[in-house]
């Protein structure tokens, strides 16, 4: 057990792991049974402390909670197993006419895309990535291991950054979605990697804190609703 893992376990018990740290600890616990056992023991000890200090919530909260889950499916947050390969997504590229109709319904104002080759844009992406309050998430899926999302409340912006991302065909684009607990998807915008496969894009006025982020491959211009399987999820 090294001191780094000790620090991460302490932060896990405190509920203060960042996304990156959580992934690091997850990997350590997966590969080292001692770390897994130490983590379990620390979390159990912290939970046991808390079980001795309870406070009954207001009665109306019970009704509110039970009302909230009534129409809510379980395990609807897209899991890694729901992520498909880009090739499989492409096999569905020629969608039925309904898809074309959906594209026509795309609300222009809903999509805000920043040119990835613009140096000013690069600076604006860096501003979010380097903000003191930036939180990051790593995407899992078939768009490479480097794709990350970062959100800064002070910048009021969400950025997507990555390298070696597979380029869509000329008539395709990647589209980023906010996915809520009920599985509803709201378009954030569309993006493409540059000729070197790098993605660096900023979406303003987008707070992903209460959502999963999903990326789909869509017809050029984007879609009103996802028409393709999810390629990457964070």
């Amino acid at each position, binding site marked *: 057990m090294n001191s780094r893992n000790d620090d991460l376990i302490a932060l896990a018990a405190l509920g203060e792991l960042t996304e990156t740290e959580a992934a690091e600890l997850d990997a350590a616990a997966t590969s080292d049974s001692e770390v897994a056992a130490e983590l379990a*023991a620390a979390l159990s000890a912290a939970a046991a402390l808390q079980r001795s200090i309870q406070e009954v919530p207001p009665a109306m*909260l019970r009704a509110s909670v039970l009302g909230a889950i009534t129409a809510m499916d379980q*395990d609807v947050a897209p899991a890694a197993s729901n992520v498909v390969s880009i090739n499989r997504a492409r096999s569905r590229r020629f969608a039925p006419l309904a898809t074309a109709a959906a594209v026509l319904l795309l609300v222009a104002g809903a999509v805000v895309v920043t040119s990835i080759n613009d140096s000013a844009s690069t600076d604006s992406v860096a501003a979010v990535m380097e903000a003191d309050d930036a939180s990051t998430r790593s995407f899992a899926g078939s768009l490479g291991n480097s794709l990350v999302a970062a959100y800064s409340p002070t910048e009021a912006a969400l950025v997507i950054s990555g390298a070696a991302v597979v380029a869509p065909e000329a008539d395709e684009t990647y589209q980023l979605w906010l996915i809520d607990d009920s599985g509803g998807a709201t378009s954030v915008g569309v993006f493409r990697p540059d000729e070197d496969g790098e993605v660096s894009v900023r979406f303003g006025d987008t707070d992903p804190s209460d959502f999963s982020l999903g990326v789909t491959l869509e017809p050029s211009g984007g879609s009103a609703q996802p028409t393709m399987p999810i390629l990457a999820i964070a």
Partner: protein
Amino acid sequence: MMATLEVPFATPHPWQHDHIAEPTSDLPTLIKRVQRGDQAAFADLYDVIAPMVFGTVKRVLRDQAMSEEVTQEVFVELWTSATRFDDTKASVSTWAFTIARRRAVDRVRREQSQRRRIDHLGRRRQDEEPLTDDTVVSSIEAEWVTRALGELPSDQRQIIELAFIQGLSHSAIAQQLGLSLGTVKGRVRGGLRRLSVTLGGES
């Protein structure tokens, strides 16, 4: 929604059940029913663990209304993610506590960011609602906690109490005590390890 830390928990230590038992022995049955989408079972689960969840959240947030909001978020996450719960890796209450603490800390971070933004705009900072120490002290019901905490070295006991009884973040503890972040994390880790040894004879 923040990603949930998915870790391969080891089998819970015996002391979890011997010294400060799960709120009810029906929890394993309840969670299996919840995993099948049984909302009545979820209502029963709520009744059993809500005081622990709300207590965890309120220790961190110190605000009644915000604690109620976050507690609801916690239970929604417990419902939606129940199918991923593995009872061979953690107890139900450890699972719930982990989600509750993380959600509460996330809310604190968001509120702090929002407050910084408001401060930046020159608006007046609102005073925090103080933690009601009397409530905390009077709600410590299990003797074993006092006993186990009493066996910790004083420096670890102080940190553990601030973190898990008072609900402070490690940075807040560091600031309050004038310690480095690394020292606080080390004492949290050491304190929890000693508690495990004290209560279960196993680290």
